């Protein structure tokens, strides 16, 4: 299961999805929105995606993980739109016969997401807002 959604991500649904009689381990990773970044107090976050390609890239990451490690199933869901501080922005759940494979695949997936999946985070902080990764200096305009 590889998708983007504007709804709250349901961890238990993803755990059910990867549950497998062959599996001896299920590893969940939950990326959450924190209230500070680079010394700034963050008030809110807003995620935007190129949805068709984002889901395709998430599936590509899943297929690559399947080739690299003997995992049973993987689910990745990324949240879009406004996300409150402390909520899950991304959840990855992997099952495997032995725990090493699931831990490794999970780590691989989150690192790849940050490199290749067309999803962008806008940070709203006290005194401005910025698209993370695209700072030009000019973007720090007051709100």
């Amino acid at each position: 299961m590889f998708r983007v959604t504007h709804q709250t991500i349901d961890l238990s649904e993803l755990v059910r999805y990867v549950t497998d009689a062959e599996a001896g381990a299920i590893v969940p990773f939950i990326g959450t929105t924190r209230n500070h970044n680079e010394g700034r107090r963050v008030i809110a976050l807003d995620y935007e995606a190129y949805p068709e390609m984002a889901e395709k890239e998430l599936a590509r990451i899943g297929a690559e993980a399947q080739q690299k490690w003997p995992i049973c199933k993987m689910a990745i869901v990324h949240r879009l739109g406004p996300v409150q501080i402390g909520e899950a922005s991304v959840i990855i759940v992997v099952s495997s016969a032995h725990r090493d494979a699931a831990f490794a695949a999970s780590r691989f997936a989150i690192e790849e997401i940050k490199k290749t999946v067309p999803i962008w985070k806008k940070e709203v902080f006290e005194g401005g807002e910025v698209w993370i990764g695209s700072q030009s200096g000019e973007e720090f305009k007051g709100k």
Partner: protein
Amino acid sequence: MKIKVKFFAILRERAGASEILKEIPDGSTVGDLWRELQKDYAKLNVPGIRLLYAVNQNYVGGDHRLSDRDEVVFIPPVSGG
């Protein structure tokens, strides 16, 4: 030929549009399209930004030749997770 261009994140805000149709000469590359778009939308030029290119939802290089009705997205640095 006509190319569908979609803008996201900082480029969407700067272009003031999410999606446009752009007429360009046959044989144009993704890089050519980007140069043309910067003439139409001067604010697309974000100093120091590093863009990736996607055609029909696949990453390509700047020298990729476009076909009529391709869907092109200029991808600012991603920041998911």
